[in-house]
């Protein structure tokens, strides 16, 4: 007998734990929630008493310490929005518990979420303000830091103008932080403000909004459980959004849903797919048209849906006809037979969901790629239905919210743009005269001109000033990285040049980030410690548009401060704190996040951020268990009955109107007041004589049983519905409109009366239009294949050339002049990039986390064994990756040494022959040189490595200036 009883050591654990609950019938739900154990989740205090109370530290036994607080917040990594439950003892975060009741993550986490406590207990944070003086880091007090930075900025403002300071914000802000940051930039007097969405999903936001109204995920992660098929292109959620897989795999398993993954790599997601389509990087449009070719050829499209709800589909037919199977195989490398099978699978399994991520967006043709995906959905009529939709996985934890809050050079919060009407609207919300805001800017022209997008900030430093180059009064003189890295931008050598050239760098971040280590400066860098979102109250918006309120877990650690508090200090220094903070309470320098959210609610009508008051959001967070994890609906008999979890925007009208939020966008099977919608009438009633409004399609219960334009006061009058407005609402509208009250739109009516009345009559405030398959205001009205700038095949370049050089957003963009240079001989391998599950973004935060760093200790490049054999490279050898950045086509300022990166080679068939892949989270090495000594002592991440973006090359989307990170060229040599 091998098994001995344990009695000679101690008693059994489980019997003790079960004491007190024994005998109770165990309900099935408890079983499932705890994956089996019958004991309740409550700590059985009686069995745990130790009789002593120890001082709390990060390793304190929880139960022994007595006062354990459970505090809920949201994970700060990807956009899934997993609830984090922290156990806090005496103000120290001692451990994490799973949150089974969260409808979004059902207790699950990925490596990052399961290790997130380290963010608030780790030692590698930036601890106090610092500056670089003569190559040494010196400690500053907060007051000194704000004064010095502020004085230098005010001087720049005077000599070079407001636009010479760049405010680069973050997708890691709370909504309140993001909104306030945009407002802060406005009060400073510039549109030079942006954040990670530019290099993440800006092409999605633009392309999708132009197609059907809102540039966001149409359904939710949870809703994928209803899908009959999953079509994923350019995404690897098993690594980038791991917890979303619980919903995707449930969909796959429970509905027996085919799971198709289109990707140049056989990703970890592809490993769980039922069909992997391996295409050449940068050929998405040809691939989608190749699928649609079979669909249209066989008449599998949804003709009724197209007739009622899609504009310009005949133009798509003309374009798709060019992409016959042979041609598509020549472009993409995918055999026609496989695409026919994919087309048939999609046609037979409706509704299917289309999922994409940065593999689709980060291209010179990004905004066309995403429209091709949308058109695939429209052709099959799967948009606006549960189980269908375009499920666009955003990247950071609040990149959706920060985008919505307008941390963007071309718009104010809520996608109002930067036109005069937008400024007048927000001036009313902010309670400051429009002329005051105008006075903050150098000129009205600059106030209404979109700023420099962050993907080009370095060109804002390096380009010559002038109409044909940098179109603003002066170059950038100060760069503020407020929660953003610099290793996430392509053209590393140019970024480094700009970091060295600019007058001042300011880094506001929980971690000092590699900006400090990347440049060769010896002066003029300031580091200010911000705290993470876990150390403050505030809401964040997950990819599915649900807002979640996070409660502060611990006080900001070390000397760090919240973004709101830091902005308050700067605003005081700059002299506009009184005007800017008029509507919010500030106590002892601490800004109340709830008040900020109330101001967001007041003004953000366009996208329905108006109904999610702090009280309603907290109610949802406190009642997680009352939501269904499939439908996201609050269960009947609970305080949240009938509401959708997190009230996904649009949550129309005022909080007291009690709109439940919109789970599935454009779903006509529900009344608008219960979350139904139709496509937005974005471009009015007609275009060149063709109707743009829906035909015979409308949400259930709509009194206008056809397409219509957006609502205004005048339209309400025509319909006779204006009598439903209250006197107060009417007075507000008339005050806003003045002489032209009839022209007041639902978007600027601060009473939200127009919205309320439209919805009461069953109509969507934004009109009822058709989705546009033809977006005539884009460079390619119907998406068409164009070869990447760094193209591997010259024959295809001749047939599918890129755009001519052009300019927008204050800077020139090169296309043809780059593509004309043939790099394919010298750099024969196609280079692409992506994510690892352990790290996120630029990676400074996650590489500083010991639990995560241990799992990925070195930078590497995936190389196909055939390509490696040709160069005599063995697995895990060091290699040099040579980049076409060795030749500077922008400034002609060629580096003395070739641009090359040193890293490990991972030999794997994950990448196809002729393709190599790098993760982009690493930094701290520069062309073979370890720059660890440049970090302030004790703040260097545990793991450093070459940044992929040092090698990645020029290329920007013509609409949004998205950078090309997915298709470049390289040469790999043994080191």
């Amino acid at each position: 007998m091998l098994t001995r009883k344990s009695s000679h050591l101690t008693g059994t654990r489980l019997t003790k734990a079960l004491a007190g609950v024994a005998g109770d019938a165990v309900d099935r739900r408890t079983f499932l929630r705890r994956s089996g154990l019958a004991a309740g989740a409550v700590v059985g205090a009686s069995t745990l008493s130790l009789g002593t109370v120890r001082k709390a530290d990060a390793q304190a036994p929880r139960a022994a310490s007595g006062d354990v607080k459970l505090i809920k917040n949201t994970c700060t990594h990807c956009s899934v929005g997993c609830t984090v439950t922290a156990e806090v003892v005496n103000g120290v975060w001692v451990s994490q518990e799973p949150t089974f009741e969260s409808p979004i993550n059902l207790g699950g986490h990925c490596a990052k979420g399961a290790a997130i406590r380290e963010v608030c207990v780790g030692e590698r944070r930036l601890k106090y303000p610092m500056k670089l003086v003569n190559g040494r880091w010196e400690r500053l007090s907060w007051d000194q830091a704000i004064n010095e930075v502020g004085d230098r900025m005010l001087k720049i403002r005077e000599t070079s103008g407001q636009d010479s300071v760049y405010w680069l914000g973050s997708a890691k802000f709370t909504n309140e932080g993001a909104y306030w940051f945009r407002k802060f930039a406005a009060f400073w007097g510039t549109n030079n403000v942006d954040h990670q969405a530019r290099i993440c999903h800006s092409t999605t936001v633009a392309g999708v909004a132009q197609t059907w109204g809102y540039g966001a995920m149409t359904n939710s992660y949870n809703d994928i459980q209803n899908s009959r098929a999953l079509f994923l292109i350019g995404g690897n959620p098993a690594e980038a959004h791991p917890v979303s897989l619980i919903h995707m795999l449930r969909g796959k398993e429970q509905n027996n849903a085919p799971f198709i993954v289109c990707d140049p790599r056989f990703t970890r997601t592809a490993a769980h797919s039922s069909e992997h389509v391996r295409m050449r990087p940068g050929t998405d449009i040809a691939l989608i048209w190749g699928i649609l070719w079979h669909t249209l050829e066989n008449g599998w499209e949804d003709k009724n849906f197209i007739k009622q709800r899609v504009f310009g589909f005949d133009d798509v037919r003309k374009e798709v006809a060019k992409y016959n199977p042979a041609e598509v195989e020549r472009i993409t490398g995918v055999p026609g037979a496989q695409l026919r099978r994919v087309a048939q699978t999609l046609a037979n399994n409706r509704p299917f969901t289309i999922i994409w991520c940065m593999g689709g967006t980060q291209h010179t043709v990004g905004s066309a790629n995403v429209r091709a995906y949308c058109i695939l959905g429209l052709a099959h009529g799967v948009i606006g239905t549960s189980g269908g939709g375009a499920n666009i996985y955003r990247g950071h934890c609040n990149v959706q919210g920060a985008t919505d809050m307008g941390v963007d050079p071309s718009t104010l919060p809520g996608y109002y743009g930067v036109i005069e009407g937008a400024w007048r609207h927000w001036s009313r919300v902010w309670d400051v005269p429009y002329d005051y805001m105008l006075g903050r800017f150098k000129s009205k022209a600059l106030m209404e001109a979109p700023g420099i997008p962050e993907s080009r900030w370095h060109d804002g430093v390096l380009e010559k000033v002038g109409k044909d180059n940098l179109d603003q009064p002066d170059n950038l003189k100060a760069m503020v990285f407020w929660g953003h890295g610099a290793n996430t931008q392509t053209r590393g050598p140019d970024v480094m040049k700009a970091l060295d050239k600019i007058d001042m760098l300011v880094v506001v971040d929980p971690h000092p980030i590699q900006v400090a280590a990347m440049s060769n400066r010896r002066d003029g860098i300031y580091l200010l410690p911000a705290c993470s979102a876990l150390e403050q109250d505030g809401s964040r918006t997950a990819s599915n548009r649900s807002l979640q309120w996070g409660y502060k877990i611990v006080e900001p650690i070390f000397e760090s401060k919240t973004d709101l508090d830091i902005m308050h200090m700067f605003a005081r220094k700059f002299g506009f704190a009184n005007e800017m903070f008029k509507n919010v309470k500030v106590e002892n320098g601490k800004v109340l996040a709830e008040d900020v959210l109330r101001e967001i609610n007041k003004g953000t009508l366009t996208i329905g951020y108006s109904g999610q008051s702090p009280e309603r959001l907290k109610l949802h967070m406190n009642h997680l268990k009352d939501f269904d994890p499939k439908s996201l609906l609050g269960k009947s008999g609970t305080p949240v009955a009938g509401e959708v979890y997190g009230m996904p925007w649009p949550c129309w009208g005022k909080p007291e109107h009690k709109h439940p939020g919109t789970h599935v966008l454009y779903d006509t099977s529900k009344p608008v007041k219960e979350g139904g919608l139709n496509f937005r009438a974005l471009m009015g009633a007609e275009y060149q004589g063709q109707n743009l409004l829906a035909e015979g399609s409308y949400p259930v219960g709509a009194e206008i049983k056809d397409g219509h334009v957006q609502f205004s006061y005048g339209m309400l009058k025509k319909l006779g519905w204006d009598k439903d407005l209250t006197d107060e609402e009417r007075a507000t509208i008339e005050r806003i409109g003045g002489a032209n009250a009839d022209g007041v739109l639902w978007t600027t009516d601060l009473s939200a009366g127009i919205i309320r009345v439209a919805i009461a009559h069953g109509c969507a405030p934004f009109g009822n239009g058709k989705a546009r398959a033809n977006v005539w205001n884009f460079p390619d009205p119907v998406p068409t294949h164009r070869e990447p700038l760094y193209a591997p095949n010259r024959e295809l370049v001749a047939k599918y050339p890129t755009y001519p050089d052009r300019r927008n957003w204050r800077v020139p963009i090169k296309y043809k002049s780059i593509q004309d240079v043939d790099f394919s001989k010298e750099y024969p391998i196609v280079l692409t990039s992506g994510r690892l599950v352990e790290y996120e973004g630029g990676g400074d935060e996650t590489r500083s986390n010991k639990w995560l760093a241990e799992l990925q200790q070195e930078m590497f490049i995936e190389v196909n064994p055939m390509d490696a054999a040709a160069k005599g490279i063995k697995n895990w050898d060091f290699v040099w990756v040579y980049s076409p950045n060795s030749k500077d086509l922008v400034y002609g300022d060629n580096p003395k040494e070739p641009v090359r990166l040193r890293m490990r080679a991972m030999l794997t068939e994950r990448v196809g022959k002729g393709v190599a892949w790098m993760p982009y989270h690493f930094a701290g090495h520069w062309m073979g040189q370890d720059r660890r000594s440049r970090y302030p002592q004790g703040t260097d991440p545990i793991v450093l490595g070459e940044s992929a973006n040092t090698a990645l090359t020029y290329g920007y989307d013509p609409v949004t200036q998205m950078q090309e990170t997915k298709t470049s060229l390289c040469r790999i040599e043994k080191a």
Partner: protein
Amino acid sequence: MARMKFLLDAERCIECNACVTACKNEHEVPWGINRRRVVTLNDGKPGERSISMACMHCTDAPCMAVCPVDCFYKTADGVVLHSKDLCIGCGYCFYACPFGAPQYPQAGNFGSRGKMDKCTFCAGGPEADNSPAELAKYGRNRIAEGKLPLCAEMCSTKALLGGDGDVIAGIYRERTAQRGYGSGAWGWSTAYGQPPRS
């Protein structure tokens, strides 16, 4: 009485490593020691599958059989634990274990491996439940708090199940019946002598 087991559904495991970091974070397991790790077979090729591995708390645990100092013991709910006070770091258990579970903090000449460390099923060790000594040597004792192993509780896709063997086998059975195929419940028959019916 419950019989505690782990079950890994390789159809669900996506190698997100949450189980690994959850374990480390919960028990403050030092760098270099992995009570749990994820192994990927056919990496990068069709048929790629990942398996999260730790001590399976075997029915007839080979480690117990070979330990020269009898430092192992089994709790009434079937969890295999050991005493670090008795362990001499000889490494026999490591050679006997079919799952590579035992870990040692140091590697040196003359067998100086240090005290063996392995997954405790979040059930601590022989010291008093949730005492500082237990915490320092074995990590937290979730079982004594009425909770289950954190790795399984935090699994992103519910691939890793941990708890009463009958209950988790039931969940797995229901899942495989629904999707129409199993994943072999890797290691189950080695550890517990019989595969779960699917």
